[in-house]
Structures are given as structure tokens and as C-alpha cells.
């Protein structure tokens, strides 16, 4: 018992550090460790993982709030889509064959690896030109953020609100189904579809993760997917790890950390896919 608690605490610290540095919810690391590494039933792993997402998001949100780059209106408006999606996802987990959960998870990791690679290759931020958008204006979604690198306020507009809203629903389903923060999908909705600059996109998505995860976590909490002996030491580890991670991030360039993590994430992704397909080596 003490043994499990100590391992979970260590897993949490590791996931917290990695999550803070890589900007991923931690869920993507936790479920593979718990299932592949420790042989836990994937449903309990997902339950533990969704708690991890809340811990990571709540921890890092504080830092982002001080940075003052997030867009609270965009977050709140799109949370309508993510929370509904999260409930749908959490309910689906209960009825779906675990095999598919492994497959989906594997695909997700491979996608994230690719996504991180793409980010590596992308240069510095360029403000995209956006057509004035009626829906965005009506919902007061356009915003301003202070860019630390350029030392000035940057005004931006968003567009394509319906498309962003739909992708957010999908991100919510993925989050509820797999117990992840699905930050990559959220950033994609904001940045690729709605043309929001990257900095406000990532902090807004971070803020949304916690609320989205809370929707599915309540479902998991009451249907018994959360085991306190696992979730509690892990959540505590994550809270500690997130603090350490944010310190490390200030010293280490994120670029190198990404280069190290991409092959690891791809490897775990294929491992999960093989497990879903029932292939053994």
C-alpha cells in the first residue's frame, strides 16, 4: 500500500514536471504509465488521469493569469461546447470496449508527437490577418494581450467561431473519453480555426482544460472510476511537480525538451496502438 502510494507520488511529480514544461495536461503521460507500466485497468487509469488534468490546469492557470494573456470570454463561450462534449465522452467510456480506448489513445499520442514536431519547425509568431467577423464582434471575443518579447499590447481578432466551437466539442469528447486535457485540440481550435495568436491560445486552452475536466470528473467520481489510493498521491505529486516544472522551464529552453520528448511520445503511442490491436512482442 505504501509502495503504491510512493510510486504514484513519483509518477505524479514526473507528470507534473513534464506537463508544466510541455504544456500538456499530464493525462497523456499518466494513462500509459498506469496501464502499460503497472497493468491497471484502463478505466481506473482514465479516472486518475482526469484528476491529474485538473491538478495541472489549476496549478498552471495561476501563472498564466498573472501573465495576463488569456481571453476569459473566449474561454467561457467555448466551454459550453467542451463541457457538453466532456459529459458525452465520460458516458461513452462506460460502454466502450477498452480495446478502442487503447486504439484512440495510441492515435492521439502519435498525433501529439507530430504536433510537437510541427511546433518545433514553426518560427516566431506572426499575427495572422483576419477578416472582421460578425459573430466574434457580437460575442465580444476579440481581445488584447501584452507581448513580453515585444513589450507592447497586441490587439487581435478572431474569426470562424462556429468551426472553433465544433472542434471544441470534439476536444471535450476526447477529454471525457480518454481522461486527457486535450490541450492540443483546444489550441488547434483557437489557433488554426479561429486565428487567435499562439500565446493567448495556449493560455486560454489551459484555463479551459480544468473546467472541461471537471465536467467529466464528476461523472467519473460518482461512478467509481476514481481510486483514492492511486488518484490522491498522484494528484499531490502533480501539484508539486508543476511547481518544479515551471521553475525548470525558466532555465531550460522548451525546444530541447520537445526534442527529447517527441520520440518518447511516439513510442508510447505505438505501444498503446499495439495493445489495442492485441499485438504482442
Amino acid at each position, binding site marked *: 500500500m*505504501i509502495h503504491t502510494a510512493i510510486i504514484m507520488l513519483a509518477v505524479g511529480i514526473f507528470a507534473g514536471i513534464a506537463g508544466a514544461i510541455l504544456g500538456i495536461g499530464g493525462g497523456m503521460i499518466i494513462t500509459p504509465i498506469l496501464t502499460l507500466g503497472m497493468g491497471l485497468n484502463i478505466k481506473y487509469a482514465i479516472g486518475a488521469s482526469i484528476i491529474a488534468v485538473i491538478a495541472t490546469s489549476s*496549478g498552471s492557470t495561476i501563472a498564466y493569469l*498573472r501573465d495576463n494573456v*488569456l481571453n476569459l470570454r473566449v474561454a467561457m463561450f467555448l466551454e459550453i461546447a467542451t463541457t457538453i462534449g*466532456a*459529459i458525452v465522452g465520460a458516458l461513452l467510456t462506460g460502454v466502450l470496449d477498452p480495446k478502442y480506448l487503447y486504439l484512440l489513445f495510441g492515435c492521439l499520442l502519435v498525433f501529439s508527437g507530430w504536433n510537437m514536431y510541427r511546433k518545433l519547425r514553426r518560427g516566431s509568431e506572426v499575427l495572422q490577418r483576419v477578416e472582421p467577423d460578425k459573430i466574434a464582434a457580437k460575442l*465580444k471575443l476579440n481581445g488584447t494581450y501584452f507581448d513580453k518579447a515585444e513589450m507592447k499590447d497586441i490587439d487581435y481578432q478572431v474569426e470562424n467561431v462556429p468551426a472553433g466551437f465544433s472542434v471544441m466539442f470534439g476536444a471535450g469528447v476526447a477529454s471525457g473519453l480518454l481522461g486527457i486535457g486535450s490541450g492540443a485540440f483546444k489550441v488547434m481550435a483557437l489557433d488554426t480555426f479561429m486565428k487567435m495568436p499562439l500565446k493567448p491560445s495556449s493560455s486560454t486552452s489551459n484555463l479551459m482544460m480544468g*473546467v472541461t475536466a471537471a465536467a467529466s470528473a464528476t461523472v467519473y467520481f460518482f*461512478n467509481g472510476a476514481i481510486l483514492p489510493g492511486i488518484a*490522491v498521491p498522484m494528484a499531490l505529486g502533480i501539484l508539486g511537480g508543476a511547481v518544479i516544472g515551471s521553475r525548470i522551464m525558466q532555465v531550460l529552453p522548451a525546444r530541447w525538451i520537445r526534442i527529447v520528448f517527441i520520440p518518447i511520445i511516439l513510442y508510447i503511442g505505438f505501444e498503446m496502438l499495439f495493445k489495442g490491436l492485441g499485438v504482442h512482442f
Partner: protein
Amino acid sequence: MAPKPATTAREMAQVETIIGRILQVGVIFSAIVMLIGLALFLVTGYSGYEGDFVPRQMGMILAGTWQLKPYAIMMLGVYCLILTPVLRVVVSIYAFYKEKDHLYVAITTLVLIILLIALAIGVKG
């Protein structure tokens, strides 16, 4: 439409700082509760319940916490952690109300209602 263009950045920044504080307090509080539960569990080596049983009804968790059962306290801590983002939504409703942004009071209230529906589904399911 509001007479001034939406709200000023400073006003929003203030709101966000308050929300950040509340999150911080919520996270620290739930961490302390979880820590007490975990410490008790490790020291006594007993979950407070038979076998692998985990309390998940609110009444049982509160009763168990009162009797200092480790698993009940741990679950209470987890529940508080889940509630922190919900608390953020509640505070945001108030913040938008203070700004007289009725559209966003409605939008944020809708998010809260969805979260309450999640709670209802969880309790029933």
C-alpha cells in the same frame, strides 16, 4: 451595446487576478485535505472500509470524514479539487455581473448549468 467599448483591459485583469486567487486557495485547500487523508492512510495502513470499498456517495464521504476514515478524507480532497474549476465558473458569473456584461453572465451561467447536469448524471449513474 455598452456605451464604452466592451471593458477595459485593466478591469479584465483585475477580474482575472481575483479568479486566480480563488483557484489558488481552492487548490491549496484540497491539497491539504488530500495530504491529511493520505498521511492517515499510510500511518494506519487501513482505508477505513472493508476490502477495496471506496465511498462515493456524498453522505457516506462526509460521515466517513467525520469518523476520520482515510479513504473518505481522500475522496473529499479529490472532490474539492474537482470543484475548484467549478468555483472559478461561479466567480466569473459574479465578475461579469459586476461588469454589467449580461451576455456573459448568461453564457457563464449556462456553463455552470452544464456542470450541474454532469453532477446529476454522475449521482444517478
